[in-house]
């Protein structure tokens, strides 16, 4: 099947779902539920999908998929609300939104920031859906080329750019923050040999430290110091 045929089929399915009022109602309801989940710091879109899966047991498969995908998308987008309004990213994906969104909200332009992030999220979601439909095989082929070396280099690149992105004073401070982040990633059981690293015998630390609590702590507590 060529790319255009796949896109045609995709829009055919979308049209079919949009023509059904129940599907539309479920779609809107699930997106709102997802936004509520994402907007609450600590509740992620993944957690939302996991918890609300129970609601879909009685649904038709297609409707259940619409519901779960809508919760996921709404949850990912909803994280930006907390980022913009209280400088605490609701989800890991919304961490960057806090950098620009919160200063705008402090200037009294919170509504504009939310409008911008809504537009950007909608455009991003549509483009990513089109990419998934049209070039999934190419993306999956490319993704499979990503091995440990590439992941290491990507993480290293992330730390290097954090020097200039995060620290207005000295680049070295951003790098220190990046490596402190890598240290936090070391906490928990080693994946290869299951050896407990920096857990101090606390079993709750065996699975490591999740990204969202770190984000909430890192973004939220300095805000309380400053006010």
């Amino acid at each position: 099947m060529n790319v255009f045929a796949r896109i045609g089929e995709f829009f055919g399915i979308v049209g079919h779902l949009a023509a059904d009022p129940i599907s539309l109602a479920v779609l809107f309801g699930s997106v709102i539920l997802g936004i509520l989940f994402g907007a609450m710091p600590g509740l992620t879109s993944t957690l939302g999908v996991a918890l609300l899966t129970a609601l879909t047991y009685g649904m038709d498969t297609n409707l259940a998929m619409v519901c779960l995908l809508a919760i996921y998308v709404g949850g990912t987008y909803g994280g930006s609300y907390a980022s913009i309004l209280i400088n605490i990213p609701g989800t890991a994906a919304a961490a960057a939104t806090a950098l620009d969104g919160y200063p705008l909200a402090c200037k009294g332009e919170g509504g504009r920031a939310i409008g911008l992030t809504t537009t950007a999220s909608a455009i991003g979601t549509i483009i990513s859906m089109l990419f998934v439909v049209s070039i999934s095989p190419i993306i999956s082929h490319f993704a499979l080329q990503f091995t440990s070396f590439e992941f290491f280099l990507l993480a290293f690149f992330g730390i290097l750019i954090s020097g200039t992105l995060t620290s207005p004073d000295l680049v070295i401070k951003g790098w220190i923050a990046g490596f402190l982040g890598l240290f936090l990633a070391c906490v928990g059981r080693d994946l290869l040999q299951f050896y407990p690293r920096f857990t101090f015998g606390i079993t709750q630390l065996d699975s490591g430290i999740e990204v969202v609590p770190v984000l909430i702590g890192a973004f939220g507590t300095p805000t309380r110091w400053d006010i």
Partner: protein
Amino acid sequence: MLETEKLRKADIFSGTIISLFGLWVVGQALKMPMKDSWGGVQNVWFVSPALFPLFVGGIIILLGIALVVNALKIVGVSGLKDTLGWLKSPELMHFLKSEAMIRFHAIVVLLFSFVFLNVPRIDFFLCSVLFLCAFITMFYLDDPSLLVRMLGMYLAGTVGFIVWFLLGIPEVMEVTLPYSSDWLTLVFTLCYCLYVSHLIRYRPRLQKKYKTGLIVAIVAPFTIGSIFKYFLLVPMPTEGLIVAIMDAVRYWDF
């Protein structure tokens, strides 16, 4: 003193602390199995759990040293002497008592008491209401003098709770008074709220904020907690007095 110079002097402290932290990471990593057997598996260095922490710790040490060296280049040896002299000066105590530090202490006390003391032992709804009441009143009222008093009150209660749990009083009182820790939390929350309302009795602007904060502190845990408990069927970390009452209402055989 120029702002940059101040920052560089502070960098001497932070760089030293970061380097020491890196040393600790390396020290801990050296205790991990490098080439010896772990869990019946003969280890090799390139899959050792110590490898990555050693790398991270080493880089942290180097970056900490680089921060100190960079600072010394700018402020010189006299800057180092000034920095060390600051440690002995009354300015240190002034800094420790500054508003920002008190805010920091308040956050540390609130979060540690909530996560490590209250959540594992006290009914989730009650300890959430207490936490939110304290957090909102301390920071939303936005008055440094009030913050110190409220922190003092909360700290006194926290010490009381620590003693309460260390002496094992809840286990002793379980027969005579079930959910004794929850009752104590309820009483302490009420006392705390009354104390705050007493502190702000002549300040109408703060009273309005206090009422709003109190509503949020009560409504938020009960709304979100109830959805999780009864709609999504997620158990609370500790279920005590309030959950028992809510269960009785929810599963009442009408």
